[in-house]
């Protein structure tokens, strides 16, 4: 089931009514949400639900053990033993969680790569290549649980003793497919108390859901089959113009697909009285790569920086104080998290290197600023800001080539085509009025965040209620006419 599919129009009202018409108790609300999440998951694959259930049971049990072992121990010897046991539980549970992800997501990739290496050395294949169905959302639920275990181990969050609340925390259906990746400190606490149906929350939820729906169902789903997919499927046939349009089209599609999904998840959460974390904050306004990654897929990047980058660069290993190397590791992991292919590794490597380079440049520039205050003024000047914005966005868009291409060879073909060394075919009728409307929406969406944009937004929200009602009605009518027919999938659901 997808949040954007017709089936959700049947599913959501039932869950909503049962949830709010029942007793106003956390246990009831969590039970309804858990049941709904199980049903949501089961519509995809009932059998693989066991994998999620087992992983959840392991992390829940480990969390309880982490809170019990060595707790309140006064004797230093016993406390040290307790700490060692805690560490063993943490390592074992994280290995179990990551092991599941590794088997389902990476076993085939590593076996294939190893065999290819042996092949290059003239040796026969040594490992069988497994082709397993990837359990829905496993990349997200694994990070949620590993994050929880680390938080409990570090004492930053209490262990959850309520299996119902914990299960919903891991598998709440709107976040199940593609995040946001939730944290114990902000989300788990919400499941432990009863939620109340508030008009403001309901209105904000519906509005957020509608905005996400427009981004996903109108923009992303329209651009994908008409502008993006045909060109990426056969880049060698298309001319440079078509390839550039397809590349920018893909950047738009990817953003609207994923940010749209996140907004729909957040909106759905709000309608159940829950506040899921923000996942995108106008990333195409960023003027540096570091800023970009603070605005794009926020829940993944903060996870990676909190649980990988920070321990790595502040711990006792070689990485201590070496931020550049930390960036490289973080983005190689991010690349692999997105998919077990060399194109994602290349993408991650490019971003790791670029961030390390940017970090070094930034340090150098700060030194210049301290020596000469004119550097501070230059950095704030419009030409510098525009150039920074352009370089950042151009880099991100260009690295989408390996991100989207099925192989490194296809990515190279696409890149050659961008320079006019490919085919000649144009997009023809594919790039019409509706594509222009998609681009306009995408640009307008970002512009509303800068200059007079926020004031316009405020002015709209201050309009009389009936006027806004009419506006929403017109948006719905527009969507019913123009949203393409057909089942659509979310790009980030495959990661």
């Amino acid at each position, binding site marked *: 089931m997808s949040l954007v599919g017709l089936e959700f129009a049947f599913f959501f009202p039932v869950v909503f009514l049962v949830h709010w018409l029942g007793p106003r108790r956390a246990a009831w609300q969590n039970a309804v949400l858990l049941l709904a999440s199980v049903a949501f998951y089961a519509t995809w694959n009932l059998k693989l639900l066991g994998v999620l259930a087992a992983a959840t049971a392991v992390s829940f049990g480990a969390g309880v053990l982490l809170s019990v072992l060595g707790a309140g121990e006064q004797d230093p010897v016993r406390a040290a033993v307790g700490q060692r046991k805690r560490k063993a539980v943490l390592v074992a549970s994280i290995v179990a969680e990551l092991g599941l992800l590794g088997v389902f997501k990476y076993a085939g990739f590593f076996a294939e790569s190893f065999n290819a290496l042996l092949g290059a050395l003239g040796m026969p294949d040594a490992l069988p290549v497994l082709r397993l169905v990837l359990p829905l959302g496993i990349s997200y639920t694994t990070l949620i649980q590993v994050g929880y275990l680390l938080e409990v181990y570090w004492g930053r969050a209490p262990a959850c003793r309520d299996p119902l609340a914990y299960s919903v925390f891991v598998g709440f259906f709107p976040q199940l497919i593609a995040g946001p990746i939730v944290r114990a400190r902000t989300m788990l606490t919400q499941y432990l108390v009863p939620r109340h149906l508030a008009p403001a929350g309901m209105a904000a939820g519906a509005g957020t859901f509608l905005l996400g729906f427009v981004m996903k169902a109108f923009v992303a789903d329209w651009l994908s089959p008409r502008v993006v997919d045909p060109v990426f499927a056969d880049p060698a046939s298309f001319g440079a113009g078509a390839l550039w349009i397809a590349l920018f089209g893909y950047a738009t599609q990817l953003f609207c697909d994923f940010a749209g999904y996140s907004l729909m998840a957040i909106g759905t959460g709000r309608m159940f009285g829950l506040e899921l974390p923000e996942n995108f904050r106008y990333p195409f306004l960023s003027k540096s790569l570091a800023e970009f990654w603070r605005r794009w897929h926020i829940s993944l990047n903060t996870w990676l920086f909190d649980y990988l980058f920070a321990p790595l660069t502040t711990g006792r290993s070689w990485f201590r104080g070496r931020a550049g190397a930390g960036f490289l590791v973080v983005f190689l992991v991010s690349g692999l998290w997105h998919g077990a292919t060399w194109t994602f590794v290349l993408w991650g490597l490019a971003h790791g290197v670029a961030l390390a380079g940017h970090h070094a440049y930034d340090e150098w520039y700060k030194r210049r600023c301290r020596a000469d205050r004119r550097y501070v003024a230059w950095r704030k000047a419009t030409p510098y800001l525009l150039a920074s914005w352009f370089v950042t966005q151009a880099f991100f868009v260009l690295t989408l080539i390996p991100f989207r291409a099925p192989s490194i060879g296809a990515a190279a073909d696409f890149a050659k085509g961008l320079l006019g060394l490919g085919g000649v075919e144009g997009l023809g009728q594919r790039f019409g009025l509706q594509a222009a409307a998609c681009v306009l929406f995408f640009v307008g969406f970002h512009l509303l965040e800068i200059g007079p944009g926020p004031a316009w937004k405020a002015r709209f929200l201050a309009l009389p209620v*009936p006027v806004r009602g009419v506006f929403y009605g017109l948006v719905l009518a527009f969507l019913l006419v123009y949203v393409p*027919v057909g089942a659509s999938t979310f790009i980030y659901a495959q990661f």
Partner: protein
Amino acid sequence: MSAGGRSWGPVLLTILCALATLAAVDAALHLVAPPKPLLEIDQAMDQYAAGDPAVLALGSSHARSFIAMDKALSQRTDGARRIQAVPVEWGKYTPYAWVLKHRILPILTERNASGALVRPSLRHVLLVTEWWDSTALDPGTGSITMALPARAWQWGDFFADLGENGLTPYNQNFLQRIWREWWSVSTLVQDRGYENITKGLREAVRGKDLEAERASYDNRLKGWQSMVEEGAGHLFDPAQKQSLEEMVGTLQGLGLDVTIVLYPRMPGTLSAKAKETTLRQFSDRMQAFTRDHRLRFVDMTFTNPLTDDDFEVDFDHVKPEGNRRLAEWALDGDLAFLAGKGATGGAQ
């Protein structure tokens, strides 16, 4: 949608205004693309249960042509004989067989407390068909995603399939149907996938683009013709043939008089190759089948009173006026027996 605050009033007012706007837009768009309500299986079954007809016309969407024939037959027999059309949208023989077994037979064979049939009038069954119905579900793949026993399902069938297979494009057809049924008066909902609203609005703004229309017609015609020509290689898929035989066996077992009716094809769309291969072969093989099983056979593929103007833009379905002429013509000719001459049997 920040209508919230602490009171429900603004939220409800926003929703009401949005819904009122939606309804107003919908009503206005009725002028551009009015919804065309189509007879679906649920409604057909209700009509069957209430009407106890003498004739059942089971087929794909083509069976809807027999609604006009029902009116003509009813007039000719002073209401004594009625035809119940049961259209299985996009259907082939396996979906027809499913509908026959799960939806029609329970009504047809229902008995009262004294053991007598509740609806004893059925005498004739018309299996309305064409070559496409006999091909594999999706030629080449054997899979089926767009069709459509799902359109004949009830909630129990849907949940059973959902439990077995999860949510699939196949069982999503059921939800689509229910959704369209719920919003049967809404142009905005009924037009999804047909794009008559955008076409109508475009024409209202820019006028008719005759050149583009011609190009689109030629393009569609080319695709249609090659589809029919390629059909010869896919006729009488084993699974479809088995379903056809099962249906005929079931109906004959009930003592019903079965007629295979080959539905008319739009003359201007038929290439010489299509006539000589797919259509001819299908007709010959179906005639042989009816001989072997002692069925009536009525072939309207080429022999009918219809011209190109009687067909819809999809090249496939007949317009209302064409259906009326087809009905009168058929009841004067090969289907005259439906009026009572030569009737035999009845469900037992």
